[in-house]
C-alpha cells in the first residue's frame, strides 16, 4: 500500500480495499514510529486528521469523489490551516493556532483530502538544510548524518520515508527542488502566480511559490490540479483558464529539444552528480530528445541578486511580528520599543535575524538604488537570458544541486557557503519560471541526485510529461531508503 501511486491509492479507496481512516491510521502509526528519528513533522493531530478521514469515507460512498478524496497529505508548516498550530518553524509562532485556512489548504479540503500533519521546515523558509528550524533539524532518510535540504526538508523527508502519501512545499530560491533532490523525491515549483499565496506565511513575496512534493511526476500532476487556480485574495495570483496538468503525461518525447546551459556544468559541480545527470540526458536521447547547448550568461549574478531581493522583502514582511497582535512576546520589558526589540530578538533565530539585517540595510536611506533597484534590474537580465534560451529549446535541464546531501552542521558556521548550495535553483525563481527536480540516480556516497527540469512560463504540463516519460523507463523514483521499511 505504501508504495502505491496516488491513482492506485484512490482506486483502493473507491473500491473499499482500504478506508481513508485505515490509510490515515497507517501513516499516523508510521509517524509515531519514525518521527522521533527523522523529525519530519512539527505537529501531528491524530484526532483532527481522523475527523477528515471519516468525512472522506462518507464522501467515498457517494458518487461524486475526487482523485485525492481520502488521501493523507502532509502540509508544510508554512500554510495556515484553521485550528492547526502553524509555526513556520519559528519560536515566534510556536503557539500560533491559525484562525483561517490558506488557499492551498482550502483546495485540498474541498476535494476531501486528509491533512496528515504539519511538516518541519527552516525558520520562515530561510535555509537550505532544515537546520534553522526552532523545532530541531530534520534528518535525511537516506543517511541520518546528512541534511534533508531546505527549506521544505520535512516534507521531502516525509515523502521519502513514506510518512505521507504526498506533501506540499514552497520554493523561494529552491526550497522545493533542493530538498526533493537531496531526499530522492519529485518536486515542482510552478510558474510564479499559478498557486495562490493566500495564507502562506510570507518570506519574499515576489519569489514565494507553493508546489507539490511526491514520489512521481504523475502524483505531482494530480496534486497541482488541486493546488493551482486563481484566487482574488492574492494580488499576484494569475487569472487563467483551469488546466488539467495530467493531460500530456503520456505524450512521446520525439523531437523534444533539451537545452543544457554550460553554466550549470562548470566548476563547482561535483563529478558524481555530473555523471548521473549526463546518464539521464543519455536516457532522454534514447526517448527521442535532442540536445542543444545554451548559455545563461547572467546566471552567476543570481545569488547576489537573490540575497538583496529576498532579505529586503523578508525584512518588510517580518516587520509584522511585533509581539502585539499574535506571536511571541518577551516576558519582561520596560517600554514599547523595548518590548518590540526583545520580542523580536528572542522570537527569531539567527538566520532570520541575519536576513532582516541585510534587508533593512539595503532598503535604508541612501542605499535603495544601489542595492534593491540594481538587483531588480539584473533580475530582468537574468529573466531575459531564459527568454533567449527558450527560443532554442523546449525545456532546460541540469543538476538541481552541485553535490548530493551534505552533512549536518557542515555549513552551519558559514552562511555564504550555505547560500551557494542553491546556485542552480535561484535563477528560476528570479525569472518566475516553473522548475522541478526528479530523482536521477545516486552519487558516490549512495545519496540521491536530482535532475532539474526548467520549463517556459506555464509549461508545467509539458515538464510533467518530460519527467513522467523518464520515470516510465527508469526506477530511481521508486527507490526507498534502507532502514525505512515499507
Amino acid at each position, binding site marked *: 500500500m505504501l508504495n502505491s501511486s496516488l491513482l492506485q491509492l484512490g482506486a483502493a479507496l473507491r473500491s473499499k480495499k482500504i478506508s481513508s481512516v485505515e490509510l490515515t491510521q497507517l501513516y499516523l502509526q508510521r509517524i509515531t514510529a519514525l518521527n522521533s528519528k527523522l523529525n519530519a513533522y512539527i505537529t501531528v493531530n491524530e484526532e483532527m486528521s481522523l475527523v477528515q478521514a471519516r468525512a472522506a469515507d462518507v464522501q467515498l460512498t457517494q458518487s461524486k469523489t475526487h482523485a485525492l478524496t481520502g488521501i493523507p497529505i502532509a502540509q508544510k508548516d508554512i500554510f495556515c490551516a484553521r485550528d492547526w498550530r502553524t509555526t513556520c518553524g519559528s519560536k515566534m509562532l510556536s503557539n500560533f493556532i491559525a*484562525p483561517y485556512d490558506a488557499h492551498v489548504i482550502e483546495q485540498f479540503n474541498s476535494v476531501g483530502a486528509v491533512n496528515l500533519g504539519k511538516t518541519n521546515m527552516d525558520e520562515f523558509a530561510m535555509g537550505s538544510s532544515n537546520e534553522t528550524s526552532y523545532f530541531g533539524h530534520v534528518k535525511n532518510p537516506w543517511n541520518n548524518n546528512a541534511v534533508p535540504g531546505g527549506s521544505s526538508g520535512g516534507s521531502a523527508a516525509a515523502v521519502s520515508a513514506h510518512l505521507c502519501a504526498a506533501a506540499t512545499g514552497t520554493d523561494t530560491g529552491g526550497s522545493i527542488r533542493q530538498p526533493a533532490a537531496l531526499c530522492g523525491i519529485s518536486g515542482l515549483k510552478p510558474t510564479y502566480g499559478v498557486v495562490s499565496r493566500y495564507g502562506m506565511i510570507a518570506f519574499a513575496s515576489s519569489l514565494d511559490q507553493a508546489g507539490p512534493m511526491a514520489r512521481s511526476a504523475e502524483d505531482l500532476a494530480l496534486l497541482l490540479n488541486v493546488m493551482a487556480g486563481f484566487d482574488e485574495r492574492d494580488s499576484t495570483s494569475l487569472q487563467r483558464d483551469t488546466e488539467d496538468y495530467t493531460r500530456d503525461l503520456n505524450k512521446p518525447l520525439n523531437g523534444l529539444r533539451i537545452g543544457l546551459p554550460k553554466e550549470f556544468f562548470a566548476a563547482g559541480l561535483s563529478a558524481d552528480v555530473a555523471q548521473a545527470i549526463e546518464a539521464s540526458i543519455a536516457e532522454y536521447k534514447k526517448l527521442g530528445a535532442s540536445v542543444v547547448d545554451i548559455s545563461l550568461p547572467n546566471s552567476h*549574478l543570481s545569488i547576489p541578486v537573490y540575497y*538583496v531581493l529576498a532579505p529586503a522583502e523578508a525584512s518588510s514582511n517580518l516587520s509584522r511580528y511585533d509581539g502585539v497582535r499574535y506571536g511571541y512576546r518577551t516576558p519582561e520589558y520596560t517600554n514599547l520599543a523595548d518590548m518590540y526589540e526583545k520580542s*523580536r*530578538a528572542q522570537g527569531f533565530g539567527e538566520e532570520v535575524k541575519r536576513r532582516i*539585517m541585510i534587508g533593512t540595510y539595503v532598503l535604508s536611506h541612501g542605499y535603495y538604488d544601489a542595492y534593491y533597484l540594481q538587483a531588480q*534590474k539584473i*533580475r530582468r537580465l537574468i529573466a531575459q537570458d531564459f527568454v533567449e534560451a527558450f527560443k532554442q529549446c523546449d525545456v532546460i535541464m541540469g543538476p538541481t544541486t552541485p553535490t548530493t546531501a551534505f552533512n549536518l552542521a557542515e555549513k552551519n558556521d*558559514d552562511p555564504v557557503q550555505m547560500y551557494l548550495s542553491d546556485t542552480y535553483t535561484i535563477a528560476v525563481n528570479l525569472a*518566475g519560471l516553473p522548475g522541478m527536480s526528479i530523482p536521477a540516480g545516486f552519487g558516490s556516497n549512495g545519496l540521491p541526485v536530482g535532475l532539474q527540469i526548467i520549463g517556459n512560463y506555464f509549461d508545467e504540463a509539458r515538464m510533467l510529461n518530460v519527467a513522467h516519460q523518464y520515470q516510465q523507463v527508469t526506477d530511481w523514483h521508486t527507490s526507498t531508503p534502507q532502514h525505512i521499511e515499507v
Partner: protein
Amino acid sequence: MSLSINDVYKVARLARLGMTEQEAQTAHAQLLNIFGLIAEMQAVDTNGIAPMSHAQDISQRLREDVVTEHNQRELFQAAAPQVKEGLYLVPQVIE
C-alpha cells in the same frame, strides 16, 4: 562596501532587533562576508534596464469597494499575547 559596527547597531535599531555587543560583532563579520558576495552585482551595467518585480509584469488588480470580511475580533484576538475588553494591551506610549 564599508559597513561599520555602528551601521550594524543602526540597522538593528531600525529593524527593532535587540542585540548584545557580542551579537553585533558576530553579525558584523557575517554581514561583511555576505556583502562581499553581493558586491559582484554592483559592477553590472544596468543603464536603460527596467526593474522587474513580477515575471508577468502585471499591475495590481482593482476590486469593487465592497465589504469582504466580517468581524471576527474574538477569534483573531485569541492568538494575541495580551488583550482586555477587546483591546490589544501594550506598554503605555503616551505620558
